[in-house]
């Protein structure tokens, strides 16, 4: 499948996130991390610096041991135990301290990294919960999941090598100071190595940064394709499109491979150069040093010291490169995460409340001159006005795509109308406090969504509900039978999106979820389409009974006559507006199009001839 990028603002945003990454951007992300976790950062840095300093101290201990143990022993032909103990104590002491440094550095870096990851994940998911549905509709699931997971991880990836790099810098400072004290000329030659290494590193970063950024983008695309393709596994299987899907995935995987191989080739060239520079530096220092010893300008011991220091520092110096190497990934991840965090769109809430829940009985719903359309598209609903009196049951009947589901989205305030308003008990939905509407209104959607939780969790959604009430709701929804048959009953886990249940079973759990809250306005959006007629009949009977008890208001989207028969009033929708209203019988008598719609099966059964003139299906 091809994606038309010009139609998708999010892909444009993705490209924006992939704009060039400078080193300063990388440091800026690090700065944010440090400001948020200064304590752990201090511990990790202390560990890194301790490690660095003690690595250099090894050279000093070796010198001390040579001076005070080795040379006197060889000269005198004997050695005191005290000196030997001191040598061991010094070496082991330095090593122990260094081990402490390693633990502090690594554990500190780990704690810092994981804390930052956790904090960002919490913030991102809070955003997901706070952002309006319209925002969600514009963002692919795969992208949002990777924002909260892979991107957060990428953003804080440089935290791991950070303390080591800081320790290396400390080590370099100490080594340079020691070299300078030993011999200025040799030190000056040796020091040339540092800017050379850093310079080569910078060129390397510049060359690979775009490739690494591209690779990260491709990784996200590979993941999105896999997500969608596995989601549609059934269709892929039934139409035998495995090969095409594999090709769609494989093409991206190959592109990712090519990008990584290109980046690898650059690394292959730079790595040996970076490794060789300090080595060559040591050789130059030796040549200079030997001639200086010859001319009496310096001592042989100083040549050893400078050469040793350069060797010791040459390996960890590359950890600076590893830190810088994480920058592009980090900055891109950080930008992608902030693309979510910086969103400010909110569904605005008022502070109005509905009459206390002790006031049972049905809620009143007023729909006034409602209009709604998706962005620039043609209107889905126009000039829609009707009232549902408390305790009454109204059926919304209309052809496929006549705007019924859109209306249920509006009643539950998943979206706000472009024009007109909706009132529950006389209060505009937009004036209600957050959470207030849900105390009175429950909706059962066409497609049920279940949480990766137990049956009980899915029905109560965490509310404190007695088991018998849960069972009662399940009974009304005709779900008590199969739930009781599950191994753990109410405590049976349903798995991600309830995949262990059939479509009809999922619908019935979703129905029980709505019923258990004893809503004052219950909206059923073709909520029993996957349930067979007999079971549906029992559900409807149960609902009717429950309704008589509570006097709840009921708004049902339905095709089946048995469902419609529940209604005191029927609204016939066509092309986003009400074209007829009245009782089922009245509409049957007065509206030919209504009668064609609901009596389709009858006419089908009654005659084999072309009974009804087909009318157009319009949106």
């Amino acid at each position, binding site marked *: *499948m091809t994606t038309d990028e010009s139609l998708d603002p999010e892909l444009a945003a993705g490209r924006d996130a992939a704009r060039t990454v400078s080193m300063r951007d990388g440091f800026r992300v690090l700065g944010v991390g440090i400001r948020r976790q200064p304590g752990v950062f201090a511990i990790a840095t202390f560990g890194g610096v301790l490690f660095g300093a003690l690595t250099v101290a090894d050279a000093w201990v070796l010198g001390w041991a040579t001076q005070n143990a*080795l*040379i006197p022993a060889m000269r005198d032909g004997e050695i005191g135990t005290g000196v030997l103990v001191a040598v061991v104590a010094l*070496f082991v002491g330095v*090593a122990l301290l*260094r*081990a402490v440094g390693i*633990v502090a550095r*690594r554990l500190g870096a*780990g704690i810092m990294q*994981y804390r930052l990851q*956790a904090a960002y*994940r919490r913030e991102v998911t809070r955003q*997901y919960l706070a952002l309006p*549905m319209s925002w969600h509709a514009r963002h692919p*699931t795969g992208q949002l*999941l990777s924002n909260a*997971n892979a991107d957060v991880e990428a953003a804080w990836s440089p935290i791991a090598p950070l303390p080591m790099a800081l320790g290396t810098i400390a080590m370099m400072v100490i080594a340079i100071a020691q070299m300078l004290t030993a011999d200025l000329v040799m030190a000056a030659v040796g020091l040339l190595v540092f800017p050379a290494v850093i310079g080569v590193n910078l060129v390397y970063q510049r060359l690979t940064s775009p490739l690494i950024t591209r690779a990260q983008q491709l990784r996200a695309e590979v993941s999105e394709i896999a997500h969608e*393709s*596995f989601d549609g596994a059934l269709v*892929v299987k*039934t139409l*035998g499109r495995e090969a095409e899907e594999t090709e769609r*995935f494989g093409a991206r995987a*190959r592109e990712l*491979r090519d990008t990584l191989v290109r980046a690898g*080739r650059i690394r*292959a060239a730079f*790595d*040996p*150069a970076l490794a*060789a520079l300090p*080595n*060559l530096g040591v*050789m130059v220092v*030796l040549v200079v*040093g*030997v001639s200086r010893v*010859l001319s009496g300008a310096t001592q042989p011991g100083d*040549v050893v010291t400078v050469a040793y220091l350069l*060797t010791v520092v040459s*390996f960890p110096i590359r950890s600076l490169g590893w830190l810088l190497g994480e920058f592009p990934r980090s900055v891109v991840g950080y930008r992608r995460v902030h693309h979510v965090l910086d969103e400010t769109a909110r569904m605005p809430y008022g502070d109005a409340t509905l009459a206390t829940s002790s006031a049972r009985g049905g809620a009143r719903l007023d729909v006034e001159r409602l209009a709604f359309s*998706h962005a620039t*598209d*043609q209107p889905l609903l126009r000039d829609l006005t009707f009232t549902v009196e408390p305790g009454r049951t109204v059926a919304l009947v209309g052809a*496929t*795509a006549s705007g*019924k589901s859109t209306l249920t*989205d509006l009643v539950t305030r998943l979206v706000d109308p472009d024009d007109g308003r909706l009132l529950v008990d006389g209060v505009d939905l937009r004036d209600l406090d957050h959470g207030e*509407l849900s105390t009175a209104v429950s909706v059962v959607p*066409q497609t049920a*969504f279940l949480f990766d939780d137990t049956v009980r969790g899915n029905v109560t959604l965490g509310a404190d509900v007695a088991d018998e009430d849960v069972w009662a709701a399940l009974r009304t929804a005709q779900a008590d039978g199969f739930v009781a048959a599950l191994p753990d009953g109410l405590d049976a886990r349903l798995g991600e999106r309830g995949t*262990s249940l059939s479509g009809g079973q999922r619908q019935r759990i979703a129905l029980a*979820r709505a019923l258990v809250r004893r809503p004052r306005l219950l909206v059923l959006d073709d909520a029993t389409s996957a*349930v067979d007629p007999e079971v549906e009949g029992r559900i409807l009977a149960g609902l009717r009974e429950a309704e008589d008890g509570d006097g709840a208001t009921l708004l049902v989207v339905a095709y089946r006559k*048995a469902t419609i*028969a529940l209604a005191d009033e029927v609204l016939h929708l066509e092309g986003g507006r009400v074209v007829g209203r009245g009782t089922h019988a009245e509409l049957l008598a007065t509206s030919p199009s209504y009668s064609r719609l609901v009596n389709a099966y009858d*006419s089908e059964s009654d005659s084999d001839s072309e009974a009804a003139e087909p*009318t157009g*299906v319009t949106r």
Partner: protein
Amino acid sequence: MSTRMDSGEANGMWATLRRGVVHSPELKQGIVGTLLLALLSTGGQVVVPIAIQQTLDNGLGAPGGPDVAFTIRTGLLAAAAVLLTGVASYLMTTRLFRTGETGLATLRTKAFRHVHDLPLLTQNTESRGALVSRVTSDVDQVSQFLVFGGILFVVSVGQVLVATIVMAVYSWQLTLVVWLAFAPLFLSLRYFQQRLSAAYGVVRRQVGTMLSAISEPVVGAAVVRTYAVEDRTQQRIDEAIRRHQQASTRAQGFTAVSFSLGGLSGGLANAGVLVVGIQLGLAGDITAGEILAFAFIVTLFVGPVQMGTQILTDAQLAIAGWRRVIGILDTPADLVDPGEKGVTLPRGPIEVRFDHVTFAYPGGPPVLRDVDLVLAAGTRLAVVGETGSGKSTFAKLLTRLMDPAEGAVLLDGVDLRGVDQRSLRSSVVLVPQEGFLFDDTVGANIRYGRLGATDAEIVEAAEELGLDDWVHGLPRGLATRVGQRGEALSAGERQLVSLLRARLADPDLLVLDEATSAVDPELEVRIGRALERLLVDRTSVTIAHRLTTAENADEVLVVDAGRVVQRGPHADLLAEGGTYGALHASWVAQQAVS
């Protein structure tokens, strides 16, 4: 048959590597050359330190005073070695990248394909996130290790070996001391690796839980809002995030401690070399200069050992990832495709035969028992029965989404298991109740039924099914985008797209499983009539709870509790009564309300 996917956790490290190479044969390509280059580049890396030591011993400490000419000669030699090493290292790294990444791309693609080849049941028991991560982040982990740690590990091991040889040339006793100092580290390595492996296993599971929790506010955004359960959802997410953080920190603690052991061993080795060295020197076995030179070479040993142990730690993660990818490939795709060797079904209406077919889900009672029937080519069959009676299982067996536990399903006399899948999928099409839509346009989604179909052909198909008005009524016609999983369309519209898909696929056997359940009655009836015309010269099986379908079918099959209890034309069955009579009565009762 197992419904669970192989976690691959039974495989040890070496078994994993072996299986890994089997699945990505590219990894073996030119391996000898790459290893030779690796040897050359590691060997070269020791030249410089040896040159330094030589210069210190024979240049700086030459008997006749410092020898500049020797130093320069040695320096030039070392420079030449560095250059050679560099070239070898470049070649080795590029080769490793090429074969490594190619091998992993193959593995990734193979695993992806295998997920599609897995039985429906296995696909459904795994969370989508877990499946996706096996072909994405798990492979990435292997890739990152291979190109970062892998090379360094080869080089480190080489350096340790070369350093040992050089040390032994100076003094075998001191070499022993160094190895003894590192013995505790080497011996405890296995223990730490095991603990680490277990700790990372926990991290991995927590990642899965966390991903599932994170997906709830995204996939279930509407439910969370309509029930205003934001706080509860956030609590669940926070808990999952906290557990993941805890597990990761714990694993990091292990690596920190195991890594610090390397630092300790280095100190012990230095102390040992000096103390034992002095004793040896006193005995006249070694000179002071040699001891110093030895101490110098020890650093060549310590560095790579520390690097190597760290890499082994990272390797645990990579191996674990690799193991999981291989786990997919090791999960049997029990619907084996005979491929080219299989029979290609001839075009034209298909005769269907169920030969004593029984099916049960693993560990469950039979869902279908001993179904034995023949359906003549060109028959329009309706299957009816209560929820859970086995109707959908019948459809899935018929389209080979599952294989029967006993008996056989035969099309035109050929056992389905012997039919080339490609031929099967082009002749037999199932339209499920919830047809999945890709995040693309309506046109592209319909075209999924026949790749390469033109817009005109799609419109023609829509006309045939009486859906042209619907298509024209779409905001942008066929170019209308359907959104994630088709959520910009209503459930009924998604079914229309699925039907059009099937129409384009032009099958000889069409199986409709509640394919129009969300469509309004008038449209459903109209589609039904259109299908009647289109189904001439095709065999069709329709599962529907709206019994009008049964009334219009040639034959009706009544399924109850996994058994076929009645079969025949609607009128005959109605006269018979029985299960069908009851079903029909309840349907009529529903319709009678007016």
